[in-house]
């Protein structure tokens, strides 16, 4: 384990660690473009050149292995001067696109210029012209003039997705990133090249011209697209309603977690955010007096108190064995725990676990067939995860044995022919829909209870590896929607059992106390990286 000195501070690192990694551990941020911890070393940007005693020339920190007794200086005069010049080289042919470039505000050229440049330009020549604003696939735009040829994107498609769509053509300062004519950058992880591009050469079509990044706030969370539970940051803004139709979430970005998704996220997960702002159920609703479940969309808004009272009454009226409660693996651990308490213990109903979606595409990288974030969590809390639970409910319903349905966001029209769904609704006396987004099933409900989405609440999910991960509330629920656990607590009170939780943390603490595998865990312990169940 070599011990080396960087800027006067000593550190011992693993054998094989590079100087740039050692510097990072000490909190010294050596500027870099081509170096990325998830990719092979290219060593072409030369931005990380540092001074190392006994070496006649500056050395690139990303490729130089830490040796015992090495003395490194990352902020000496010669290093600073060299950085200025490297920056200058990179800017020689770089177009003055900042006013129209999405990368502005999170651009390595801008950031390093402010930190390591601040020189006056002495360029008096015409810049090399290349292709601009070229679509290279369904998700990514390429601007070759902006490219600094760090080759991160090429290494990504070679080494991570192994799809090799990208290459660098030509020689010298006519070098250009490109794809083979007739092909596209269309693997399932294409969006990641935008994350790793240090400049505005590769930009996300979905985010193009949407919002200036300095307006964005960020909140850590977990992707709800499948049971992988990739860590994300939700980038949002709430003040400027004229931006993006008043949507709050502008984009999702992967958040680094060495144990789950490293630096990456699949495209499905990345672009799985419109449901947060679009097609939301804004207010509680009840079926208009006199209309029945099957039939037209006859819902009218109702105040929360009234809607909850109505739901509670139905829950009491309809016999226990005539109820079907469809809990969802989209619900948080806290919600699922309360659902068991309310429906199971207090009301004595049977709970099923029904996924709102079918199994989908999976691979041996980040995409799981189970498109729900908390199936594992449900299992660990005592739910059955056997397949066919929905089919059982439908069989009973067709035989006329189900009079009451409690739906947690699923859409029966997804799974069955309209006739079957209609038949089910036809036999029901009440269908209570608790969910965030409208769907054809919600339109048939007797009571609609709008719930918050994951971005609007705290809570936890358990991924397929039994890792419990936290959601961090980014902003308030839309309009009158409420967190699912609060709705269940309100129903519980109306059912005679008052629950005293003030926040989800308290629910989780109870889970940790009552459910053996959760023992020892707290929100604090879980933090931003998660913790594995015992």
């Amino acid at each position: 384990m070599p011990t080396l000195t960087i800027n006067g501070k000593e550190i011992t690192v693993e054998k094989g660690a590079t100087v740039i990694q050692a510097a990072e551990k000490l909190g010294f941020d050596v500027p870099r473009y081509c170096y990325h911890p998830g990719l092979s070393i290219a060593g072409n940007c030369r931005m990380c050149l540092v001074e190392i005693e006994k070496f006649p020339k500056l050395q690139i920190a990303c490729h130089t292995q830490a040796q015992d007794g090495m003395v490194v200086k990352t902020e000496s005069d010669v290093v600073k001067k060299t950085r200025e010049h490297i920056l200058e080289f990179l800017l020689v042919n770089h177009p003055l696109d900042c006013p129209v470039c999405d990368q502005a505000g999170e651009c390595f050229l801008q950031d390093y210029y402010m930190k390591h440049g601040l020189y006056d330009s002495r360029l008096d020549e015409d810049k090399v012209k290349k292709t601009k604003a070229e679509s290279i696939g369904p998700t990514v735009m390429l601007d070759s003039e902006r490219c600094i040829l760090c080759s991160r994107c090429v290494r990504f498609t070679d080494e991570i997705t192994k799809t090799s769509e990208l290459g660098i053509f030509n020689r010298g300062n006519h070098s250009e990133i490109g794809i083979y004519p007739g092909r596209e950058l269309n693997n399932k992880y294409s969006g990641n090249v935008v994350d790793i591009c240090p400049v505005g050469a590769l930009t996300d079509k979905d985010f193009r011209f949407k919002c200036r990044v300095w307006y964005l706030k960020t909140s850590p969370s977990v992707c709800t697209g499948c049971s992988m539970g990739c860590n994300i940051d939700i980038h949002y803004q709430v003040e400027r309603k004229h931006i993006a139709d008043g949507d709050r979430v502008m984009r999702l970005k992967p958040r680094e977690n060495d144990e789950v998704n490293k630096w990456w996220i699949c495209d499905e997960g990345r672009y799985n955010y419109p449901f947060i702002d679009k097609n939301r159920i804004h207010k509680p609703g009840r079926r208009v007096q006199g209309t029945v479940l099957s039939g037209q969309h006859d819902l009218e808004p109702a105040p929360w108190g009234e809607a909850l009272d109505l739901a509670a009454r139905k829950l009491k009226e309809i016999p226990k064995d005539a109820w079907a409660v469809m809990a969802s693996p989209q619900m948080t651990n806290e919600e699922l725990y309360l659902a068991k308490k309310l429906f199971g213990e207090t009301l004595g109903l049977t709970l099923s676990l029904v996924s709102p979606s079918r199994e989908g595409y999976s691979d041996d990288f980040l995409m799981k067939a189970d498109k729900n974030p908390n199936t594992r969590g449900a299992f660990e809390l005592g739910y059955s995860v056997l397949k066919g639970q929905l089919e059982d409910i439908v069989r009973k319903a067709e035989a006329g044995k189900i009079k009451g349905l409690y739906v947690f966001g699923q859409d029966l029209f997804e799974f069955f022919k309209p006739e079957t769904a209609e038949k089910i609704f036809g036999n029901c006396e009440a269908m209570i829909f608790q969910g965030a987004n409208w769907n054809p099933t919600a339109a048939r409900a007797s009571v609609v209870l709008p719930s918050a989405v994951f971005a609007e609440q705290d809570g936890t999910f358990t991924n397929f590896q039994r890792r419990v991960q936290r959601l961090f509330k980014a902003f308030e629920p839309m309009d009158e929607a409420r967190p699912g656990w609060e709705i269940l607590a309100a129903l519980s009170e109306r059912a005679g059992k008052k629950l005293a939780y003030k926040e989800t943390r308290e629910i989780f603490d109870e889970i940790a106390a009552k459910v053996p595998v959760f023992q020892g865990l707290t929100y604090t312990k879980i933090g931003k990286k998660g913790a594995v169940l015992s």
Partner: protein
Amino acid sequence: MKVVAPFLFSPEVQERVAKIVAQYERKQAAIIPLLNLAQEQFGYVTPEAEKFVADYLEVPIVHVREVVSFYTLLRTEPPGKCRIAVCTTTACRLRGADKALQYAEQKLGIKPGETTADGQFTLESVECLGACEFGPVAQVNDTYMGYLSGETLERIIHNGGPDREDWCAEAPLVETPTGEPLISKFFHMEESHKLETYLHHRGFEAVKKTVGKMPPEEVIDLVKKSNLRGLGGAGFSVGMKWSFVPKDTPKPKYLVVNADEGEPGTFKDKYILVKAPNLLIEGMILASYAVGIHKAFIYIRKEYQFPYERLQEAVDEAYAKGYLGKNILGTGFDLDIVIHRGAGAYICGEESALLESLEGKKGLPRLRPPFPAIAGLFGCPTVINNVETLSYLPFILDRGYEWFASLGSPKNGGMKLYCVSGRVENPGVYELPMGTSLRDIIFQHAGGVAEGRQLKAVIPGGISANILKADEIDVKMDFDSLKAAGTMLGSSGVMVIDDSVCMVKLLSYATKFFAHESCGQCSPCREGTGWIHKIVERILAGKGKPADLNNLLDISSFMSGNTICAFGDAAAMPVTSYIKKFRAEFEYHIQHKKCDIENADAND
């Protein structure tokens, strides 16, 4: 590997494809040979050919396209029936390449890079072809045509192609002066490339004395003591370089011969390949024996068509007669040689870029460490040596290391093939003792400055060498003496400049070369070379600014030392040395917006 491409290739060609691929330990290494083959068949690399290469060698097609786009000689469009590629680098420019190119432009009515409307002629401006001694040079289809003039071009155009045999077949134009000719002895012999001739002149005596008789470590030690230095340009001790290869390794070891000869002003290896290929072959056997190598590749620049044909002939003859392959001359030692042609890129003369190119990729130099002796070709221990370096080995092992060392100067042993070109009376290859004075080379041996003019400057070792003024030529032409004098021996490409040459214009030849040949991998060189060339062109066009000179020096100084390979340092040297030593000329251009040298460059 069965080749099935009936719509693409005939059965005979399919067989050639299979044979080519079988020569390489990794399939991908056959990319450039197969692309060259496709271009030979179709005139250019067709999309079908790209797809075939990608599928057959199991390489993503984008990486095939990368290779095609990187190399000058691979094209994606059909060329004219006759391709005229005029060299426009320093030595040929000093001999009138500008006039020749202008004539061709006028006569054909097209600019470089274009093809005539009737599809007959394609005109190109290319970098150093390695034939500066009969410059200005053009490569017409595959043939080297020397002494390009209006007349010769008239004949070529009229003929629709070359009108005489390849100039590479000519003997060098002058006699070899001082000392006993070693390599150059073969340059004037009849049939010198044939095995019989070679055997007649102590050919393979060294192999007979050494292989299987002397312990390999002793061979290495001997070569160290002979003071043989790397003659491609770096001047590193050959024996020491060999000793870096690990003795015990489970991996196969390789010898790679650098026959890329791209350094402007250099043309010596060409003669060895044409006139004395058996010296190279014997040298390769000796080197391989010393290091424990049984497979060697000769990477030869694609432009060298006639030299390649001669070399292949010699290798084939050696195989046929038991001088290569298994159990060479009954010694029990095996060596296989594969000749690998490049595709047109100066950077592939850099040893790690050469390896990348050999492996089927763009010629992008590698990060070091690891060094090739540890992880070179296909990740295995590799020795890379220049053609001339290996060709002196038979003399060392046949006649003794002490004798060889004594021919030269301290620590710089043996003889040297000096290439003299530019404004000199008798351009050519001169084999002289290592450390001969530059003044003697120019004035005693090469006939002095041409047309009775005055010497102004000398570039002593290829385009990357710091320039020497006329009063600085009393220097010994060996690696250590020139380093002490603030320049380098490099490839021994001596380019002579007289008082009719404008130094600003001369610099622009160098900056154009470097901007054109930069591989583009790392930022200082990729951007620096292009930027520097633009500034120099602007000064030449009369639009220079006072800050330009200090900017040029500053930009160069930060290119130097900060790049992945020595190209960045090389590109900086002409800029710093020409400006430092001839600053007044540059300042004049900037102040007065014109040149103060009358008849600046006799070509205008």
